[in-house]
């Protein structure tokens, strides 16, 4: 029932590619909990057994009552009391075992989910950037939350339900056939009837659920698109057009929604009806047997059977539910495992070379690179950069300027050729080592939730307040931080009012604190006011001072002052040199430069 509220699509479960494989992997993952799991399952069996034996006792009480009515001594209340007491104990045990089972399974499931989440979070940091550059964050996020939650909600139930159901069916069959084989046959005869009916209904309703799901997806997409572009739709008077499209899908949803709801709503009544048939059947046949044999106490058997029949319908419904949830669980598990099994970054444990302090010479030698195998975008790139030089990377939007950053930071490995830092090939250095050598300031001014201090010292220990204050001064943030309620220990989160420019300055300060010998800078294009822009420029100048710096440049002064300009187009570096050389060459750079600052040709 609780599932139903989540969008009304209980009947339509997503299927995993391979149920068996996911199940195997999940089983392996759960192996550490094998012993408690066995205990839990034993508890489930025990609870079920008590549950099954008890109707027999109730039947005996009824029989005793009937006997008592016939005999002159009246009812044997003492014996009934004895049986009653034994039942009280049984029910008690049943509850205790039942709860123990639930407790253990819950614990196992949640611990497993905890491990799943942890594994995913670790995995995120071990996957190459390539993985994330080709996928949306939402995809990974939904594995950490939705998929793991799905496993958490269903695993617990489905495992124990399955065991309970199997025990129940086997136990009930035994009990029923022992008590009265004739009545047992009547009760069991109803099973195939209900199974067939359920299968028919499911196969029809599944179709409509799927349809409904598709239409709902379509309408959600439409709504999202329309609502988020409200101003454009208004300005183009397109409201009616949008409403028309909407109405079309909405109508179709109605058609499939009511059919799906109706058909799945039939399930319960039909099961109840078949259960009732069994019930009445037991009454009739039991009655006939009793009268034929003249055995009045057979009423006890009938009483027990009435409970058996009621119990018997339970595991059957459970089976169909479990089959459904298991499918969703496995599909979720499959997505989680898919992620956990993605290929990780190459192992670096064998790398011994380590650069601690460097001058900052960088040399690219015959570097070729492509994101996709067989599609080289950087062709035979050579450049020799001396320590302390400024390198400007320029080119139109989408020319692949970040590719160079990716290579320098070893986020991606070169396809062939080599990059040298102070003469040491980068391929012989660990990624962590390379990262330590570069400071990095990107355009998207990423700050994380934490105090300003944490944001500045990010991941480093033992940075003194003195250093921090110096940096704040150099970035012009001193005043800003002073006005904050807790100074350096002010927590930055969604509620902190901090401008885009201040964010940018903080990322610059962070790079200053890191104090790496080389730098990668992405100049912000816009979205800060002029005064802040000047502040940022000054801070960046302070930062680059004395360091080898790669600057993705948008500002002309930066470009013109650079020692080397790398001009990029369509992923490749097509020209290099300083401003004067490139202008003289009259190539792509000269063209780009002129188009920006020349007067537009007058009519």
């Amino acid at each position, binding site marked *: 029932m609780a599932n139903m*509220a989540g969008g*009304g699509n209980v009947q339509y479960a997503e299927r995993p590619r391979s149920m068996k494989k996911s199940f195997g992997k999940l089983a392996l993952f759960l192996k550490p909990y094998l012993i408690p799991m066995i205990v839990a399952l034993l508890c489930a069996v025990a609870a079920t057994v008590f549950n099954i034996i008890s109707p027999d006792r109730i039947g005996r009480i009824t029989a005793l009552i009937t006997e008592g009515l016939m005999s002159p001594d009246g009812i044997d209340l003492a014996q009934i009391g004895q049986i009653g007491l034994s039942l009280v104990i049984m029910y008690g045990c049943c509850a205790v075992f039942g709860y123990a089972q*639930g407790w253990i399974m819950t614990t196992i499931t949640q611990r497993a989910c905890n491990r799943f989440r942890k594994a995913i979070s670790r995995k995120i940091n071990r996957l190459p950037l390539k993985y994330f550059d080709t996928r949306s964050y939402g995809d990974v996020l939904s594995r950490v939350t939705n998929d793991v939650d799905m496993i958490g909600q269903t695993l617990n139930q489905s495992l124990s339900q399955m065991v309970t159901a199997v025990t129940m069916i086997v136990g009930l069959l035994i009990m029923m056939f022992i008590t009265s084989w004739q009545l047992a046959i009547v009760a069991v005869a109803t099973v195939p009837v209900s199974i067939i009916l359920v299968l028919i209904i499911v196969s029809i309703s599944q179709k409509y659920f799927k349809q409904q799901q598709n239409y709902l997806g379509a309408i959600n997409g439409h709504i999202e698109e329309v609502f988020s572009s409200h101003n454009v739709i208004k300005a183009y008077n397109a409201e009616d057009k949008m409403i028309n499209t909407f109405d079309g899908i909405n109508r179709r949803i109605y058609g499939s929604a*009511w059919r799906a709801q*109706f058909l799945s709503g039939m399930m319960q009544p039909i099961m109840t009806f078949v259960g009732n048939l069994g019930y*009445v059947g037991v009454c009739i046949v039991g*009655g006939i047997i009793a009268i034929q044999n003249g055995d009045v106490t057979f009423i006890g058997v009938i009483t027990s059977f009435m409970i058996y029949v009621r119990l018997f319908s339970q595991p059957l419904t459970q089976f169909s539910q479990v089959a459904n949830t298991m499918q969703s669980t496995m599909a979720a598990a499959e997505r989680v495992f898919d992620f956990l099994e993605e290929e990780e970054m190459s192992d670096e444990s064998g790398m011994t070379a380590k650069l601690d302090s460097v001058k900052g010479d960088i040399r690219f030698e015959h570097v070729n690179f492509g994101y996709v195998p067989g599609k080289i975008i950087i062709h035979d790139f050579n450049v020799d950069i001396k320590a302390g030089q400024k390198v400007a990377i320029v080119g139109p939007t989408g020319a692949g300027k970040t590719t160079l950053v990716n290579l320098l*930071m070893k986020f991606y490995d070169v396809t062939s050729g080599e990059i040298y830092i102070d003469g040491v090939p980068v391929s012989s250095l660990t990624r962590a080592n390379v990262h330590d050598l570069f400071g990095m300031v990107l355009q998207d001014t990423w700050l994380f939730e934490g105090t300003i201090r944490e944001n500045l010292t990010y991941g480093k220990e033992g940075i003194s307040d003195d250093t921090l204050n110096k940096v704040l001064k150099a970035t012009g943030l001193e005043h800003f931080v002073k006005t904050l309620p807790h100074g350096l220990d002010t927590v930055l989160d969604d509620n902190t009012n901090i401008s885009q420019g201040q964010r940018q300055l903080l990322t610059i300060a962070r790079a200053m604190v890191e104090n790496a010998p080389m730098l990668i800078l992405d100049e912000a294009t816009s979205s800060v006011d002029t005064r802040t822009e000047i502040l940022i420029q000054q801070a960046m100048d302070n930062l680059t001072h004395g360091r080898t710096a790669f600057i993705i440049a948008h500002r002309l002064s930066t470009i013109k002052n650079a020692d080397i300009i790398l001009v990029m187009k369509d992923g490749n570096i097509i020209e290099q040199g300083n401003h004067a050389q490139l202008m003289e060459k009259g190539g792509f750079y000269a063209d780009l430069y002129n188009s920006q*600052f020349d007067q537009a040709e007058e009519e």
Partner: protein
Amino acid sequence: MIRILKNFKWYYWLMLALMLLIIVGQVQLDLIVPEYMSQIVSLVTTPGSEMSEIWRVGLIMIACAFGSLVCTVLASFIAARMAAGFAELLRDKVFRKVESFSMNEINKFSTASLITRCTNDVQQIQTFITIGLRLLITAPIMAIGAIVKMSGKSGELTLLTFAGVLVIVVFVLFIYIVAVPRFKSIQKLTDRINKVTRENLTGLRVVRAYNAEAYQEEKFDKANTAVTKTYLFVNRVLSLMQPVMQIVMNGLSLGIVWLGATLINANVLELPTMMSFTMYSMQVILSFLMLIMVFIFMPRASVSSKRINEVLSTKNIINDPETPAADTGIKGELEFRNVSFKYPDGDGYVLKDISFKAEKGQTFAIIGSTGSGKSSLLNLIPRFYDVTEGEVLVDGVNVKEYRQEELHDKIGYVPQKAVLFSGTVDSNLRFGKEDATREELAKAVKIAQANNIIEKKGYGGNVAQGGQNMSGGQKQRMSIARAIVKNPEIYLFDDSFSALDYKTDRLLREAINKNIKDATNIIVAQRIGTIKNADRILVLDDGRVVGDGTHEELLANCSVYQEIAHSQLSKEELANG
């Protein structure tokens, strides 16, 4: 919850009444069954009964069960149609309402929230009506029916049944009080996990560049531990549910038989009555369980219905005039008269006392830093928002005196964030003019420098939702072409060249100047290069006009303009330019 039902169509009430009748019938049939059962019991326990009697009673029981089935199926048929129909109706109402909103109302709710209201919230109501409403009707009828049947038969056993009900109610209350607050915190903790993960993902490059993986992981572990702890607690409490329910039901059965034995022995109760009692008491318990289920459902549905009601009952701030102004015959003229503006729930003025007039065919630029009010100024022209003070006039008529549709026809708006709509390249270009000819499209595409998009994709090329399968620059050029196809009197470019590289930016402006001479261009920009050649430039700072003139004039006498220029162009560029 009740208020949402005001949207019911009249025949829904009829359907509801019919459903009620059918359910009463169903419950009646269900309640007769135990009576026949006790007849069978007395037949069996009375020596010398006829077998045919048992058959007769048995067949009646089957007939009752079948009748009950038919009733249930009918009821669920009605419920399903009603629920799906009502959902359709609500979805439609919400969607139309939102379409009539101005940006004021949209921002009041936020787009994301409106989307949820139109999708998930409606779905919640549908689910509640299909399942909840039926349970809500069935449960009391069943409980009352069973209690009526029990009454007068045995006070002791009735009391026992009530005791069982009491235990269940108390227990559910206990669970509710203990678990529900934690339940709510689970949502928050999950959000926290989401947030930490998102942070790590969006900052992936920085995290790695600073070798700060361990720091992020530690943060994640904290969130993970917190959520696991709460989940453990809640689920352990919820695990109590099933064993306790079982023990109550079983205990009740046993209690009835045990107590029944004593009562029968004392000759105050008959065996068949006791047998039917077992069934009635189960039905009472069952109906209470149903009610509990409804109460678990109800809060979600009632929150949803409240959220939908909020949308439907919102009064639109911007409306069409009753008598639109007549056409003045003027074309392409735009004037601001002493316009001041603040957002409805904002505290300060975003624009203060702005006056200017743009003539037909002029290129009129507005520049200023972020937050200076440029985009807000532009938003007043198509009446996305209404001015707080002053007047905006298009073609000599106050924009408030146009029907919005008429006003929008005059305007070619190109938003800051270019968005396209799912469909084809062709359908996107025709967005503002359904019947445009192929030549008109081709011309617009050419001006917008979007030729290579057509070459690559063709007019039939597929455009994904929001234009996600195109780059920012492509989308921007497409959205410019879309405006040109419309052939408006006034173009509004809201920083629409920002995703273009300098060269395309220049080519595009040249093409616009060359080909669209009649129209008035209002350009909001951040780059000096984009607007240098405008006929007139308005410089905004903090919502006020601080400069007004041509590039050269402003460069000479407007300090804010100079600052902007210096940050973007080097000194010699400015001198030579």
